[in-house]
Structure formats: structure tokens, C-alpha cells
């Protein structure tokens, strides 16, 4: 259905060329919103939409942007989109918007956006740019979800607010790992994700 090239554009960022663990983009928010699964999911979706849209818009106007002021133009496009998304979230999902707090606004300075706009949208057609944005957004969301699942499950025994670890475990002496809720564990977990990702990909490479 899709040609090999478009497939690579869409699926590459999910694993082999993942924006977070391989390209090291957008780490800040990836670490900060992963205490629970729900904000992580919302953040992943928000970033995916914004990257895809921003890629399309910048790609459409790429031939008219003067090289010297391109960063400002890109920032304004992204800032406008982020403002839209943040107003929508405040209207329909106020509690999640409050949980994300400044990190929603910080999507503007998320390196994934600037990185993809610079590296891809400035030189490619709108449709390819859309797929690239979609792929990168999803690649980012996957890492967020993995880290958030581990942190919420081990840290508070819940997923999306539902109790997963049964009460009988607590009665038998099991305790939630409070460490998982600390900022430090997010860093260490991402470190471990990178470790696993690299060791698997190295084996495939051989």
C-alpha cells in the first residue's frame, strides 16, 4: 500500500531511529510527565498532533521562508499550534492540563519539533513531512508510555488510576516503591530503556 520510502519515513522513528532513545530529542518532557500513565498518554498524543501539523505547515511554506529568519518562523508556527492545543486541553480536560502544567507550554521548545522541522520538513514535500511527524510523535509517545507504565505500576500500584496490584499483595507485606515517583528514577529508567534498546538493536545488526 505504501512504498518502501514512505514506510521507512513512518515506521523508522518507532524503533531504529527513535527520537528519544536514539536521536536524544525531547528528553525534558519525556522525563517529567511520566509519573502517571494518563498525562503521559495525553502528552504523547499532543506532541504527535503538533509535530505532524507543524511539519505540514512548514513544509508548505518552506520555499517562501528566508533562510536567515527560519528559526523564528518555525517557532511562531509551533507556538501557535501549542497555544491551540493547550486551550483545547484546558477546555475539555482541565485536570490533565493542570498536571502537565508548564510542560505543555514547553512543547514549543521540545527539540523533537525543531529537529524534525529543520531536518525534514524544510526539504521535503507536505505528505512525507506529515508521515515523518506522525512517526516521530508516535516514537516519542511509545517511550513515554513504557516509562510511565513502569513508574505508575511500581510506584503506586495503579494504571490509569485503576488498582492493578491486588489488595492481598499489600496484606502479605508488599509495599509500593516510592522511589519510582521521584524524578531521579525517570532518568535511571530512561537509561535502562536505552540500554535494552541498544543491546537488542546491536544483535539485529550482526
Amino acid at each position, binding site marked *: 500500500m505504501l512504498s518502501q520510502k514512505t514506510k521507512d519515513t513512518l515506521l523508522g522513528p518507532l524503533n531504529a531511529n527513535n527520537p528519544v532513545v536514539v536521536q*536524544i530529542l525531547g528528553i525534558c518532557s519525556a*522525563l517529567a510527565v511520566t509519573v502517571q500513565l494518563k498525562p503521559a498518554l495525553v502528552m504523547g498524543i499532543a506532541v504527535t498532533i503538533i509535530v505532524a501539523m507543524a511539519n505540514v505547515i512548514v513544509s508548505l511554506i518552506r520555499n517562501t521562508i528566508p533562510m536567515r529568519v527560519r528559526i523564528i518562523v518555525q*517557532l511562531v508556527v509551533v507556538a501557535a499550534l501549542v*497555544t491551540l492545543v493547550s486551550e483545547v486541553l484546558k477546555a475539555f480536560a482541565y485536570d490533565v492540563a493542570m498536571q502537565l502544567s508548564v510542560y505543555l*507550554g514547553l512543547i514549543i521548545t521540545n*527539540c523533537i519539533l525543531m529537529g524534525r522541522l529543520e531536518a525534514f520538513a524544510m526539504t521535503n514535500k507536505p505528505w512525507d513531512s506529515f508521515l515523518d511527524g506522525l512517526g516521530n510523535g508516535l516514537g516519542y509517545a511509545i517511550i513515554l508510555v513504557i516509562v510511565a507504565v513502569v513508574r505508575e505500576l511500581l510506584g503506586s500500584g495503579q494504571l490509569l488510576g485503576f488498582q492493578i496490584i491486588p489488595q492481598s499483595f499489600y496484606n502479605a507485606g508488599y509495599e509500593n516503591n516510592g522511589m519510582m515517583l521521584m524524578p531521579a528514577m525517570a532518568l*535511571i529508567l530512561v537509561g535502562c530503556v536505552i540500554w535494552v534498546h541498544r543491546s537488542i538493536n546491536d544483535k539485529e545488526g550482526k
Partner: protein
Amino acid sequence: MEHALSLFMRSIFADNMIFAYFLGMCSYLAVSKNVKTSAGLGVAVTFVLIVTLPVNYLLQTKVLDPLNLGYLSFILFIAVIAAIVQLVEMIVEKFSPSLYASLGIFLPLIAVNCAIMGGSLFMQQRIGLPDADPKAITGLFDAFVYALGSGIGWFMAIVCLAGIREKMEYNDVPKPLQGLGITFITVGLMALAFMCFSGLNI
């Protein structure tokens, strides 16, 4: 005065940009390979923070709030930051070409450094806090103090990490963990150490 001092100490230690909020991680991880370059970047970030944050504070309290244009704050803040970064870039290029060369691509990227934008956004949140709250920013001076503290905190974090990474060059790290993986875990351990400041009160 007491409030300002408390705000200053908190923003360096308890509310450290890197260890408590993960702001400015991208350049933090990429530039921390040696102490000299990272100190240069730390100074640049601190400088941009103490210029942009008071400017954004004035914009927020004198322009956006009275006119009820709060939703424009993202666009306005990022424009101010981008303009000031451009200015800093020209100054550094003129007065210290060697620093300019070693900072390379990361100087223009300060514009999209989350620590700068994050500082302004936190400032925006803190304006609304009651005066007695130790985190509240009640005036221009507070905004300046908060920017200075956050900048110094960031500077300290990046220089510490660069020092550790210079030493780690000689360590035998498992291959898939080399480079980025071990850096993340190091930062995680540093963040653990910084957590002991979290109850700090003056």
C-alpha cells in the same frame, strides 16, 4: 529581602532546573563532555535567563494581564527569547571567538533550550501565588533573583556532570550502556543526591 534569599537558595538547590524539573536536558546531555565547554554554556544560559525572565515578567504583568491576553504568552515569550539569544550570539562571536567555536550549534539552540522557556513559564505560574509562599514571585527583583538562582543551579549541574564524565572516560562500561545510557544513570544518581536539598528552608 528574606523572601528573595529563600527564593534564590530554593531555585538553586530544591527547585533545580535539571534535577527537579528536567529542563534543558538536550543540551545538558550533549555538551557536558568537558568542563570548559560546559562552563561556557552554563554562563550563556544563566545570562540569557537573567535577561529574558525579567523582560517576560514585565510583559506578563504590564501588558498581557491588564489586556487579558494571557493566551498569547507562549508566542510572545518565545519571540523575546529568540531575539535575545540572537543578541547574545553576536556578542559572544565578537568578544570570544574561541568560546563561540566550541559552543557551535548549541548557542542558537539556547533559544529552544527548555530551561529558558521553562523559567518564564514557571515565573508566569508563580505570579499568582500568595505572597507568603516561598515560591511566589512578587516583583521585578524577585523575578531577577529567581532567574539568577535557576541559572546558577543549571550551571552547577552541567559542570558537575562534565567533571564526572571526564573521569568516566577511563571506566569500563558495558558496551550497550556506553555514552548516553550511562550518562542518564549518572544524572539519575546525581538527582538522588540533590533530593536531600528538597526540604531546604531559610
